[in-house]
């Protein structure tokens, strides 16, 4: 196998891993506040399609990204209305949101299939200027890729070093205690969903506007569900989410590598790695409850009488 092929594989793994990491970070925030969003797939699709549409219409990818981000936040607010205000079941509401996303994104994206857009500029990874041209083209990344790791640290900081994050985690662990400390669990959960949705929107924007640069129906191809798995894998921790996304990217890369080198391992089986790995990790923690899910994840907060 050539060095070129290897680099190509690494490069595409980075591209595909980035959107996943943003999405996972968003879901980390949702779940830390106690809400599991199974409709992430739908959120991603609506964000991607609306961002792509705006980019195509306005010619500005930045405007497109902004719309993606807002669309993600708003999609999550719909979920919030159902599960926070109407106290509906989180899993069923998430699935409904997923179908909503399938439909709405198809409607938005319908007339943009095959449209070409102005994408984000791509900048060479610093320090690689000396490489031959044929290689450097593989290591030109869009700004969203460069921002994703700092974003993970930012999310960590928000969750673990600010008053807001402390309150958010308290709500996710025990809404009654959070309420007793003078906080409004409903409001905090709405905020968490909005922020989490915006991050998912950023992931969708990276996927549609920066990476794929086109819109196809159902282009997220299960990323939402992978993100949900990765949140569990990373034990609801934003920095471990980086590791999770890396493993996923590595699996993708590995699969591409094997294909390019002619080894016969079914890509289908490789696709199962992130899920099986998560499952194994879950079983391995076992009874160790210390780092498990936020304690009130999935529960309805009834509020005071």
């Amino acid at each position, binding site marked *: 196998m050539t060095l070129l092929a290897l680099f190509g594989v690494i490069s595409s793994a980075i591209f595909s891993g980035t959107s996943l990491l943003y999405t996972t970070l968003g879901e980390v925030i949702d779940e830390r506040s106690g809400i599991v969003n199974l409709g992430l797939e739908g959120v991603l699709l609506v964000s991607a399609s609306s961002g792509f549409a705006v980019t195509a219409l306005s010619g500005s990818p930045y405007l497109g990204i902004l719309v993606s981000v807002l669309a993600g936040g708003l999609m999550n607010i719909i979920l919030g209305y159902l599960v926070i205000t109407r106290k509906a079941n989180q899993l069923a509401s998430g699935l409904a949101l997923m179908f*909503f996303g399938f439909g709405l994104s198809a409607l938005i994206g319908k007339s943009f299939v095959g449209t070409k857009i102005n994408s984000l500029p791509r900048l060479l990874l610093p320090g690689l200027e000396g490489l031959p041209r044929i290689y450097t083209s593989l290591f030109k990344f869009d700004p969203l890729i460069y921002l994703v790791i700092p974003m993970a640290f930012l999310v960590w900081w928000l969750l673990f070093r600010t008053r807001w994050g402390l309150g958010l985690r308290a709500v996710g662990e025990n809404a009654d205690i959070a309420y007793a400390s003078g906080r409004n669990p409903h409001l905090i959960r709405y905020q968490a969903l909005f922020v989490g949705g915006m991050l998912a929107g950023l992931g969708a924007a990276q996927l549609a506007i920066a990476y794929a640069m086109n819109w196809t129906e159902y282009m997220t191809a299960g990323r939402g569900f992978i993100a949900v798995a990765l949140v569990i894998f990373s034990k609801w921790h934003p920095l471990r989410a980086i590791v999770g996304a890396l493993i996923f990217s590595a699996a993708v890369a590995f699969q591409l590598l094997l294909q390019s080198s002619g080894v016969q391992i079914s890509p289908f089986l490789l696709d199962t790695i992130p899920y099986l790995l998560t499952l194994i990790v879950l079983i391995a923690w076992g*009874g160790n409850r210390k780092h498990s899910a936020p304690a009130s994840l999935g529960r309805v907060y009834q509020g005071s009488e």
Partner: protein
Amino acid sequence: MLKTSEVAPRFPMLQNKTIILVIRYLYMILLAFLLFGVILLISGKDPLQSYKDIFTYTLGSAYGFSEVLVAMIPMLLTALAVALPARVGLINVGGEGQLYIGAAFATFGALTFSSLPAWLLLPIMIILGMLGGALWAFLPGYLKSIGLVNETITTLLLNPVAPKIIGFLIFGFWHSPMDTIKTPNFVEAARLPTFFGTRIHLGLFIGLILLVLFWLFMKYTRWGLEIRAIGNNAQAARRNGVPLKKYLIIVMCVGGAIAGLAGMSQVSGFYGVLLLNFSMSLGYMGFMVSWLAGGEPLGIVLMSSVISVIITGGNLLQLTRGVPYSVINLLLAFTLFVVLARPNLIKGKK
């Protein structure tokens, strides 16, 4: 004071206040259609005409109606696969995966024993399909029963794995000479019989009979009583000597088996071939049907028929009005949203 309540679905009762409920559901569905009408209007379609199309087709024509019934079949089963475990407090979100594995097992039977006569082959396929689904549900049930991992998470994680295994099997071993994304067509003996010259197949009757059996089982049998006791108060049931762990595992596996049967009936009755990604969220659909129906058999029939009308009607709109099929998901989603949000039509009712 404050209360944080368990996520365990609070099922609306489908017994006494049936009429009020029917009115409420009709009102909600009306609301959903209203919302979707706005969407149609925005995309330049005439909503009234579209709805007229949907209803005259699905409910006004014999063939259209038969198509609604066909669409209902897998949902009846996948909903039951959720409703039964819910009775012991298990949340089975894994219908999608169990359905795929059931389909794979049944396909294995169809391809391996293709020379057998139908009366032998079909029962083999049914048993295999149920076995597959049960196997896929065993791990979550077992892990839950020993208090290790929550079944919601495990069933969910196993969902995306199943279609990949199908892909592996089709691509690697089973694909037809012409096509790499599906198996060869099943022999006639491996097809569930169809009726009335329509696509309605035996699966419909299996589904309905299972729902009736489920109702009878829960109401009359010793095990139904114990299951209800567990669902009411698992700790008390345990103290009263009901074998809790055994029930958790078995009921989960039976749920999986029913979802596996749904997979079998789709490949054998509907497609006659195992296709890559054939389910298209049927398992998730079943989860929502069951949840919205409060896990009651009659409610499952009602909810799945409503959703089938929407889906079948959507197929029609796609053909006649150029509405992209996936937009029908919007109508579906609106219906689900309004039912989930439970707007109060009648004061004081919750």
